[in-house]
C-alpha cells in the first residue's frame, strides 16, 4: 500500500508540474522585480540571432534594474495556432513580434494594448519619420495605435540582366506590355529558359500576383472594405495572368512550384525573371548574383502608379500583461535599439525603420536594390484600404486570394467566372468575420 501511495504521489507531482508548465509567472523574481515574457519570431538563420537578442536584453536589463526579460525565439511553423492558443488560454506573452494580420485580429478580440503613448512620443520628437507613414497607420484600430512596425517583407523581382540584354531587352520592363515584349524576346533568344517563374504552390502566391493588381490600381478590397475582384482593373489583371500562360511565358508546372523550387530553377540559370521576396540564399550563387538585379512591380494599363506589396510584421503588447507600463517601455526601447539584429544577428528580414538600412550589412547590391527600387513603391498589402479590413486575417490564413491567381494560371475557367468566384469567397470571409 505504501508503494502505491508513493507512486500516486510521484504521479501527482509530475502532473502538477506538467499542468503548471504553461504558467507565465516566474516564481524566481526577487521582491520588487518583475519578469516580462517576450516572444520573438525567428528572423535569424543561425544561433547568432538569439545571441544578439540576449545581448540586447542584457543591455536593457542593465539599464532598467528590477526588470527581467524572458525571451523565447518562436518558430514560424504554426505561429498562428501558437499565439491563438496562448491568447485564448490566458497564457499570452507580455510582448511579442507578430505577423502583420495579428495585431488587428487581437485588437478586435480586446487582447491588444493600445500603444498610443509610444507612437505619440515619436511624433513629438520627430523620430516617427523613420517609419513609412502608411505602415504606421495600418496598425490602428478604433482610432488607436495597436502595434509598431518591426520587420518588413517586400515582394518584387530578381532578373538576369545578362539574359535580358542577350535577348535584346536593354532595360527592365516598366509596364505589362513591355513585360510581354521582353518575355517574347527572351523566349525567342533562349528557348530553354523560362522567361518568368513564380511559386504557384506557395501560400504566398497571391503576394506576387497582387503586385500586378496593385499597379493596376486595384487591391483585395476597395477603400470601403468591399471585395474589388469584380472591378474592371482586377479583370484586366486576371486576363494578363492568363496571357502569360497562353503565350508560354511561365512554366507549365507553375501551380506545383514552391518558393524553393523556383529558386532552384533561377539559381541553376534556367529562368530570366523570378518573383521573389529577395532571399539571402542568392549570395550562395555568386555567378548568378553577379548578373542579377532587383526590380519592382510593373504598371498596368489602368494603373496610375507602380505599387509593390509589402508585409510588415509588428511588435505588440498583449492586454493580458500584468505590467502594461513596463511592457510599453520595453517595446519602445526594443523598436529603437534592434539595429544589431541586422548587423550582427543575421536577420533575414528588412527593417521597418529606414535608418537601420544604413548598417553595412545592407550595402550589398540586393539590399540596395530593394531599398532604391522596391521600398519607394511599397504599399501595405491591404491597399487602398487603410488598416486591416474585417476578415483579412481569415483571407490571409486561408490564402483566399490564391484562388483567382491559381485559376488564372490554370486557365480552364473564363475570367468572369474567376472574378465572380473570387469576389464571393472574399465576401464570405468578410461576412463570417462580421457575424
Amino acid at each position, binding site marked *: 500500500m505504501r508503494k502505491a501511495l508513493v507512486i500516486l504521489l510521484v504521479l501527482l507531482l509530475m502532473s502538477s508540474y506538467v499542468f503548471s508548465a504553461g504558467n507565465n509567472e516566474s516564481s524566481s523574481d526577487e521582491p520588487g522585480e518583475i519578469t516580462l515574457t517576450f516572444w520573438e519570431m525567428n528572423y535569424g538563420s543561425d544561433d547568432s540571432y538569439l545571441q544578439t537578442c540576449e545581448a540586447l536584453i542584457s543591455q536593457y536589463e542593465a539599464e532598467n534594474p528590477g526588470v527581467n526579460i524572458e525571451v523565447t525565439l518562436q518558430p514560424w511553423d504554426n505561429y498562428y495556432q501558437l499565439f491563438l492558443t496562448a491568447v485564448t488560454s490566458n497564457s499570452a506573452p507580455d510582448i511579442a513580434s507578430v505577423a502583420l494580420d495579428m495585431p488587428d*485580429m487581437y485588437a478586435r*478580440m*480586446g487582447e491588444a494594448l493600445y500603444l498610443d503613448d509610444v507612437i505619440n512620443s515619436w511624433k513629438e520628437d520627430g523620430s516617427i519619420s523613420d517609419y513609412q507613414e502608411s505602415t504606421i497607420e495600418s496598425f490602428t484600430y478604433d482610432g488607436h495605435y495597436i502595434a509598431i512596425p518591426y520587420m518588413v517583407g517586400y515582394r518584387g523581382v530578381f532578373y538576369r540582366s545578362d539574359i535580358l540584354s542577350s535577348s535584346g531587352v536593354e532595360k527592365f520592363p516598366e509596364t505589362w506590355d513591355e513585360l510581354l515584349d521582353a518575355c517574347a524576346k527572351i523566349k525567342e533568344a533562349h528557348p530553354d529558359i523560362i522567361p518568368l517563374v513564380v511559386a504557384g504552390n506557395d501560400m504566398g502566391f497571391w503576394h506576387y500576383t497582387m503586385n500586378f493588381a496593385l499597379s493596376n490600381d486595384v487591391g483585395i478590397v476597395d477603400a470601403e472594405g468591399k471585395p474589388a475582384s469584380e472591378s474592371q482593373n482586377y479583370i484586366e489583371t486576371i486576363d494578363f495572368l492568363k496571357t502569360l500562360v497562353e503565350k508560354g511565358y511561365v*512554366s*507549365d*508546372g507553375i501551380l506545383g512550384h514552391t518558393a524553393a*523550387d523556383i529558386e532552384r530553377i533561377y539559381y541553376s540559370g534556367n529562368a530570366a525573371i523570378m518573383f521573389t521576396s529577395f532571399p539571402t540564399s542568392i549570395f550562395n550563387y555568386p555567378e548568378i548574383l553577379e548578373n542579377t538585379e532587383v526590380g519592382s512591380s510593373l504598371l498596368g494599363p489602368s494603373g496610375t502608379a507602380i505599387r509593390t506589396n509589402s508585409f510588415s510584421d509588428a511588435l505588440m503588447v498583449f492586454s493580458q500583461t500584468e505590467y502594461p507600463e513596463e511592457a510599453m517601455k520595453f517595446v519602445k526601447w526594443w523598436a529603437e535599439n534592434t539595429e544589431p539584429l541586422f548587423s550582427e544577428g543575421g536577420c533575414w528580414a528588412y527593417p521597418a525603420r529606414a535608418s537601420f538600412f544604413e548598417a553595412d550589412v545592407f550595402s550589398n547590391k540586393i539590399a540596395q536594390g530593394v531599398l532604391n527600387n522596391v521600398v519607394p513603391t511599397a504599399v501595405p498589402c491591404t491597399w487602398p484600404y487603410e488598416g486591416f479590413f474585417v476578415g483579412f486575417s481569415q483571407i490571409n490564413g486561408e490564402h483566399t486570394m490564391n484562388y483567382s491567381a491559381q485559376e488564372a494560371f490554370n486557365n480552364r475557367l473564363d475570367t468572369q467566372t474567376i472574378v465572380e468566384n473570387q469576389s464571393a469567397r472574399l465576401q464570405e470571409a468578410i461576412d463570417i468575420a462580421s*457575424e
Partner: protein
Amino acid sequence: MKKRNNVFTLLMLGLPTLMLILVSFYPLIRSLIMSFTNYNVLRPNQDVSFVGVENYGKFFDDTRSFPSLSFSLIYAFFCVSFSYIIGLGLALLMNAPIKFRAFFRALILLPWAIPTVVATANWLWILNDQVGFVNIVLQEIGLIDSPIMFIANPVMARITCIIVGTWKSYPFMALSLLAGLQSIPDELYESARMDGAGSFRCFWNITLPLLKNVSTVIITMMFIWGFNNFDIIYLLTQGGPLERTYTLPIYTYNIAFYRGQMGYASAVSMITLVILLVFCLVYMKAQKLED
C-alpha cells in the same frame, strides 16, 4: 496481501482510466457540446449561446464540405486498398525463407520510419516538373514528351497524395500482415500440399481466410487514419491546387483556426466521427455475417 494487491491493481487501472478520460473523452464531450453552440474563439466577449443543430445544417449547405468529404473518402479508400495489396505481397515475401530476410524487413520499414515532413519534402523534390528525378528519367527514356504535373494539375495532385499516402502506410500493413502470417501453423500447409494443393490454392484457402481477423483490424484502423490524415496532404499541397485536395480534416482546421468558428468546426468533427463509426460498424457487421 490479496487486499493490498487489489488496491494496487485498482490504482494502476484507475490512473490510466482517469488520464484517458481527461485526454480523450473530455475533449470529445466538450467538442460535442461546442458543436451545438455559436462559439467563436476570435470573439472572446461574445455570449456563447445554444444554436441547436444549426452548425450541422450549415455543413449540408456549405459548398466546400462535400468535395472535402469526397476526397477524404477517395484518399482513404485508395490508400488502404493499395497499401493492403503491396503490404500483403511484401509480407508473403518476407515470410518466405529468403536470404537477408532481416535486412529486407528493415528496408521495408524505412518509409514508415522517415518523418512525414522530411518524406513529403523529398517527394516534392522527386516529383518536381523541372528538376524532379521522376520527370527527368521518364523524359530521358522517352516515355513522356513533357513533364507530368504531379502537383500543379488538380487530378494529378490527388493521385500524388494517394501515392505518397500509400508509400507511407504500406510498411505498417506489411508488418501487421507478416505477424498474422507467422501465426498460421505450417502443418496446415503441409497437409494441404499432401492433399495436392498448389501455392495459389494454399494462399486462397488457408492464408487469406486465416488473415481475415488481422486484416479486419488493420483495414479498419488504416481507413480511420487515412480518412483523418492531415499532415501528408497538407505538406504536399496545402489542400490545393484550387482546393482540389481539401479533406475534411484540412477544412476543419481552417474553420477552427482561421475563421475561429469552433462551434461549426466541432460539428464537422462530429460528422466525421459519425461517418467513421458507420464505416466501422458496416465493415464489422459484414465480417460477422461472413463468419
